[in-house]
């Protein structure tokens, strides 16, 4: 058991992933059932819009929790779940946009274009989803090989900016009660500050290591050509 937690086998990872996948689908399933049974309240379209948006933001934050969790627990295999979590963030984001375009605006492209250009909260929300697209498209082993680890990582660091846009999107749409967006903002701030702190530690560590100085102590053996 302990061993499994520390270092699960290939099969065990597969099972963990399958279970996580099912778990991540639950919010969507609940909405689908609620829609079908008419239990989403008086304004089901609003409920779906809100819930899909909430879950996009939550999955983004959960994805950003993987690295700290891995470092704090030493469970390195957690990293192997990150891609799925990130892709779920994107999937819920797409569902959110689809709800808006289809159920809310009913493909009124003029109104949608107007909204994206004129309403700052929609502008940043839309930008966040657009910026997530390349990350989703490169969330596969082939892309990592193709881009090279360094470039791939640089690209995927944009997730920090995307998460900020997501929180701003939520904050700007609220009428007066900002408690909930504030919770997300605090969670994100903590996750970002943690990373900044790690970076700073790493920088200090590198500075603390003295640069390799040429050693003159001890015997110096001169190698000189000798004439014969």
């Amino acid at each position, binding site marked *: 058991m302990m061993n499994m937690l520390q270092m699960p086998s290939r099969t065990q990872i597969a099972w963990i992933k399958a279970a996580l996948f099912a778990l991540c689908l639950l919010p969507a399933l609940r909405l689908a*059932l609620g829609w*079908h*049974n*008419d239990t989403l*309240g*008086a*304004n089901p*379209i*609003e409920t779906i819009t809100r819930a899909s948006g909430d879950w996009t933001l939550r999955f983004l934050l959960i994805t950003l929790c993987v690295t700290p969790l891995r470092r704090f627990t030493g469970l390195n295999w957690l990293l192997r779940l990150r891609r799925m979590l990130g892709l779920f963030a994107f999937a819920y984001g797409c569902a959110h946009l689809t709800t808006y375009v289809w*159920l*809310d*605006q*009913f493909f*009124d492209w003029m*109104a949608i274009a*107007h*909204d994206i250009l*004129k*309403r*700052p*909260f929609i502008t940043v929300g839309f930008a966040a989803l657009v910026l997530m697209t390349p990350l989703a498209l490169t969330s596969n082993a082939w892309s990592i090989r193709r881009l090279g680890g360094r470039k791939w990582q640089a690209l995927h660091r944009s997730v920090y900016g995307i998460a900020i846009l997501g929180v701003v999107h939520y904050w*700007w*749409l609220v*009428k*007066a*009660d900002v*408690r909930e967006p504030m919770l997300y903002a605090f969670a994100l701030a903590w996750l970002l500050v943690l990373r900044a702190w790690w970076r700073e530690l790493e920088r200090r560590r590198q500075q603390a290591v003295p640069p390799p100085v040429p050693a003159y102590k001890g015997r110096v053996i001169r190698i000189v050509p000798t004439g014969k």
Partner: protein
Amino acid sequence: MLIQRPSDILPSEITPRARFEDRRRFLRDAGLLFAAGALGGALPSAEAATNAAPKLGPLTASPFSTSEEKTPYKAVTTYNNYYEFGTDKSDPAENAGRLATRPWTVRVEGFAGKPRTFDIDELLRLAPLEERIYRLRCVEGWSMVIPWVGFPLASLLKQVEPLGSAKYVEFVTLYDPKVMSRLPVLDWPYAEGLRLDEAMHPLTLLAMGLYGEVLPNQNGAPIRLVVPWKYGFKSAKSIVTIRLTDKQPATAWNKAAKHEYGFYSNVNPQVDHPRWSQATERRIGEFRKRPTLMFNGYAEQVASLYQGMDLRANF
């Protein structure tokens, strides 16, 4: 005054709440059954029956009523904005039960010849109760059709004899931190205001009921304002003081965000809220959005109140 589309619906012709709820329940249960079949398992049963509020009556029909399909009682009483009881739409229905609506008095004061305090039971007998089926348009972009019960605010104001110097009417609502939110979401107590001519307009209603019954707490019991051509937040709930003033009163949402919620807040599809469009609305229960009408469809009756005014500046 020219009144468009006179309605001849009598209260007796309106589908009783219980009956249409039965229809709704049938439809929902049919859906549940289908889902249960599809899943091959049982699903939780429907919630317990609602406790019926006392009936109000006799009611007279009003020529101001619309013949549009009414929003179901359940939606009207579970999808509410009443921030003192929480900011989620479902919060007021869950929390407003704590509010005690008896005893209750309404003080009518200020620039009046005969200011005085009215008991709620006296108010219920002050003028003949009418049923007014009005459209309600929320600033958030949704709308309902609600059969209110009440009488024109003018009937009450006339009782206190407004002075010539009275230009505005301020409505102060209950704020009781013992039963309401202590969070400073808005500057409590919630206050609203109208120009005196708006307040005296025959469409402006003091409502004490809906669907022929006493107003549920979450809808602003025991007495609230209904101004159908303005965004919903203008229609203050659970009123305790009505004050005639000579200055434009400060209003709750205007104080919270003055570039977003103006004093007038007339429904106007041409003037957008800074953060969302007001051109269309979703009628609760409908799928597609519908265009929003100028003055929420009451232009015929109220447009003259604003003649010569720049409605973009006076939003």
